[in-house]
């Protein structure tokens, strides 16, 4: 098992040409990862706890106005700025999945990682989580509920990565492309989000990342993200 996992490089490809900014991924992420809803008052304070958000940028002036969308989540940097600044190793690089993990039990809540993340991908539990009826009945048993005072962020649905690997091991076969589908990719109506293992030469993303449209967010910072975007056209809003 351990050998099979070694060298996995989980990578996500997001095709901006296909993204319609429908926000289904945002909702799916909340449901899958027990991310609390914080209510309108907190959201007005800028404390929306989305692990994944759709950023919308306007381009141009009124008659020729264009909107551009980009879903932004933790980029799972291979050279992550959040890791060295944490005094207690709560933000760590995981060798098995080659992603950046947050160890909730270790986190003391200095929030330094949040300041140092150039993608603003990290969200903080300002208060104890609150799940209004009937959301409290549908918490995911595979994911911890985080209490006040800890940082959290996208995990690439690491519980699904592990479940997929376990299923493959049970069936006595290597992990195949499609065994692991994170919540955001599962609900995406246009199939704009694809997660795969870059080490697997037969995976779909292996082709995608070679595309001329491929780019990484804030590439010049040298964080080596594991999220690759495919450039998209613009949609007219008029």
């Amino acid at each position: 098992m351990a050998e099979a996992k070694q060298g996995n490089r989980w990578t996500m490809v997001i095709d901006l040409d296909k993204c319609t900014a429908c926000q289904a991924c945002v909702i799916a992420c909340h449901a899958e990862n027990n991310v609390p809803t914080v209510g309108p008052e907190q959201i007005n304070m800028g404390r929306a706890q989305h692990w994944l958000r759709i950023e919308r940028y306007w381009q141009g002036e009124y008659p020729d106005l264009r909107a551009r969308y980009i879903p932004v989540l933790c980029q799972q940097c291979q050279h992550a700025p959040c890791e060295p600044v944490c005094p207690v190793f709560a933000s760590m690089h995981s060798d098995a999945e080659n992603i950046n993990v947050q160890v909730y039990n270790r986190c003391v809540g200095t929030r330094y990682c949040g300041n140092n993340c150039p993608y603003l991908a990290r969200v903080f539990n300002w208060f104890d989580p609150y799940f209004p009826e009937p959301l409290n009945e549908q918490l995911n048993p595979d994911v911890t509920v985080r209490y006040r005072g800890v940082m959290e962020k996208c995990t690439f649905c690491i519980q699904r990565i592990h479940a997929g690997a376990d299923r493959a091991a049970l069936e006595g076969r290597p992990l195949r492309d499609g065994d692991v589908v994170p919540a955001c990719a599962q609900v995406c109506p246009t199939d704009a989000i694809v997660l795969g293992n870059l080490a697997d030469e037969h995976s779909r993303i292996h082709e995608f990342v070679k595309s001329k449209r491929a780019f990484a967010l804030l590439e010049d910072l040298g964080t080596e993200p594991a999220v690759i975007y495919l450039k998209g056209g613009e949609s007219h809003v008029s």
Partner: protein
Amino acid sequence: MLAELPRKFGWPHEDNPQERLLLDPLPQEDMNRIMLRPMLKAGSGWWLVVALLSAIVLVCFVGAWAYMIRWGMGLAGIRRPVFWGVFIATMVFWIGISHSGTFVSAILRVFNAEYRRPITRAAELMTSFSLICAGMFPFIHLGRVWTVYYMIPMPNQRQLWTNFQSPLAWDLFAITTYLIGSTLYVYLPMIPDLAMARDHTTGWRHTLYKWLSLGWRGVEYEWHYLHMAIKIFAFAIIPVMFSVHTIVSWDFAMSMHIGWHSSIFGPYFVVGAIFSGVSAVITVLLVVRRTMHLEYFLRPEHFDALAKLVLIFSLAWTYFFFNDYLVEWYGGDWVGHQLLLFQARGPVAPLWYAMLLFNIAIPCLTLWNKRIRRSPIALFLITVGINIGMYLERYIIIPGFLHINNMPFDWGNYNPEWPEVSIAFGTLALFILLYTLASKFIPLIPVWEVLEGQLSHTRRRIGRTVVTSVAELE
């Protein structure tokens, strides 16, 4: 021609010798009495101040903090992307104040500046007390303060270890080292004065000072070792002082946040810290002099000399400030420009202009004037203004800079909420409370140092002029 000059402009260095403390000696017993009188009797005013400050500390600091621990960090106004707010700004402010003692005392001691003699103790005490205030904020700002021991490197069954790569871990060790070092440094020169207090008191105070003075008798070898130890500490504490504020600035400079990631932050913060620290020494000395009637020890010449230091550090801070700003501007980075425009035109603009007024305009326009440097009221207002300005500087650099980042969609405004303002205000009350309490237990003027200075200074007539001669003490 040359003979005309003094008639026109006066003799700048030949002020009335009676104005200078070291040339105006009193018998030792009289000096002891001046120092001990305000210490030994506590008037109703003192009790009122202590009761008021204790109440403020209990309600505004302890109460608000307990309330925040119970309900969560969210009671503060911080939010994504501004994860650090008033707490960290106030921490940096107190660390800045703590540089007063070490700078005024250690550096002036190393350079044998004679005017330091009556003011070292009061300045060193500020270092210890402001470090206590500063040292609380790393706890206060934690989301889960009850797990703070995770940061201490000690073997444990959780198999956790400190990440020594993190500037926050460096911070922990730097502040602890500085607190221990500066406390020893304030204690050492205090021993002869504690022994003096022991010999002049009875009852529980006598017992207290007997223990604190470690059996000091004042024989020659004791003086010899004391001088040696003070000298070692004075030299050793200076690099610690520089490293502490440099490391505090590295909390920001080591990150990759735009505006923070600047190689000049180390010296910039050190200079700013000394600037605010020396100003705070003046403020505190003015209050001590007035309330404890120490006009004999603390004279215009001392405030004059300290105000000159403030002027120099105002200029140095100005240099660093414009250096930081201009380099960012010429870098041409779009986000960097937005950050600079945010300071000059954004929501923090009023604070930014107030900072420039308090830190540059007022000190640079006033402190060149000798009459202002010797006026207690003017100096009090100017130095309090400088510390307001320096607080604003920290506020602009820490939560202010975090408003702007590489992802324009996520820019956001931060407004402090009452719990954080209350806690910050509570530490100010705590600082004043500690100082007020200390004024009744610790001789705030090192009488033996003043006496030593007076013994080494004499006036001698050479030909037609009278000159001051200073004996080498070493």
